[in-house]
């Protein structure tokens, strides 16, 4: 049995980056697999790392490449298998960043970025995260929960990066063996708007309309433009000056797709 997911993602330059002439250092990518699964990867390049947008892009691409290739052959059957797959994707992503750093003769930390990956299957959800940003899901009973919380140090401008030496220890993984209705992955630029600090509970009035929007997508290109317009809107920019990226995954609201 295949489930049908609607997926939309966008990344938008933050107003402070615009002012300082910095590029958008967020990157996100999604894939819908033939077996019905949806893949999400999202990375937020470090502000001070000079080539972090390349690091973020590479991390995202390599993680999806790994997940796609593995899942095309075989899907894990248990929690341990999903966890191992997430670890593998992060290792491949780090390897990819290491490679471009070596090719460029630059230190790895010049490509520093966070990374979040999610695999949404019909009855499984597996997510991994190094750094900040957050993953929020809604289950079939319309309960919202934050799967993985932003990682930060004592100070607000400190977090973990894929490029750190102990990256595999920093990786937080969560596997849920139940069907989900919708999922959202976001970068740090949105967490203060979407989560209630300090406990990082989802702010439901933020997610509910977004998930409804995703479930009802008819035209993919138009949906991306609408999401970009939302991320660029004045009311959103009044509350955050950082780059912001957002991916929404929802079961399609067609008559056949809701189990």
């Amino acid at each position, binding site marked *: 049995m295949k489930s049908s997911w609607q997926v939309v993602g966008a990344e938008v330059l933050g107003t402070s980056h615009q002012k300082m002439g910095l590029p958008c250092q967020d990157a996100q990518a999604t894939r819908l697999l033939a077996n019905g699964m949806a893949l999400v990867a999202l990375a937020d390049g470090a502000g*001070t790392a000079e080539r972090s947008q390349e690091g973020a892009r590479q991390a995202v691409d390599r993680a999806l490449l790994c997940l796609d290739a593995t899942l095309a052959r075989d899907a894990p059957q248990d929690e341990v298998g999903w966890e191992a797959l997430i670890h593998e994707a992060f290792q491949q992503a780090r390897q990819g960043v290491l490679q471009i750093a070596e090719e460029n003769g630059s230190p790895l930390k010049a490509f520093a970025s966070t990374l979040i990956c999610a695999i949404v299957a019909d009855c499984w959800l597996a997510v991994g995260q190094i750094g900040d940003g957050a993953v929020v899901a809604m289950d079939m009973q319309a309960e919202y929960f934050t799967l993985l919380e932003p990682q930060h140090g004592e100070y607000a401008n400190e977090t973990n990066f894929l490029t750190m030496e102990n990256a595999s220890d920093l990786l937080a993984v969560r596997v849920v063996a139940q069907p989900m209705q919708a999922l959202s992955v976001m970068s740090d630029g949105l967490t203060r708007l979407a989560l209630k600090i300090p406990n990082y509970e989802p702010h439901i009035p933020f997610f509910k309309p977004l998930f409804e*929007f995703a479930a009802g997508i008819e035209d993919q290109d138009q949906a991306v433009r609408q999401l970009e317009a939302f991320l660029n809107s004045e009311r959103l920019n009044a509350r955050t000056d950082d780059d912001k990226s957002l991916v929404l995954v929802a079961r399609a609201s067609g008559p056949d797709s809701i189990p």
Partner: protein
Amino acid sequence: MPSNLLDQAEFADNPEPRCPVALLLDTSGSMVGTPIEELNAGLRAFSSALKSDRLASLRVEVSVITFGGSVRALDVQGGSTKDMPFDAHQTFVTVDNFQPPNLSASGNTPMGEAVQRALVLLNERKEIYKQNGLDYFRPWMFVITDGRPTDTGWEAAAAQIKQEESRKGVIFYGVGVENADMQVLAAFSDLRPPLKLRGLAFEELFQWLSKSLSVVAHSRPGEQAPLPPVGWGQVDTSHS
């Protein structure tokens, strides 16, 4: 396609992260006249410059401690000349509510005591953030003096700051004015050599401080925000 759904998304109402700053200002007798007037003008420039940055004005919290004759915490919310108790609940105010005090100069220079008390205040402020679930940036201590400490405990205060600095607890900046003892100021930090103010360019100094704090208040995870270039002084290298 219902694009208005996105317009319906409501944002969580979270408090802004905070960046506590202690301004330690030398108001000893040698500052009388033009220096103290320029320092006051600088404080006013600092206030209006940071207020024009909306997010920074909600994130940066300022406390003003003076050392001239005695060590005092000033009323930066009311802008009155009365003293405040050394209580981290009362001595800090976000920049949007900051009233620059009008300083006058007299007495000796108890800088060591001022530094020690400011460090206590900054650490207490951090505790308040933790208790209230507020995110925060590394505290700043900014010391401006035109002389040398007259209290005996300043070496201990300097050692304390260095220790705090090494465990990333505080960012210390020392600025010397005119005949300040730069060697003494250098003893407070292993990371940042003291800066010598060019003439009495307090206004430029505070414009810089305002810009720097704006940069910090807008900095994202992973950023050691590069600060704007110092146009108001020079790094003192004569003792390094």
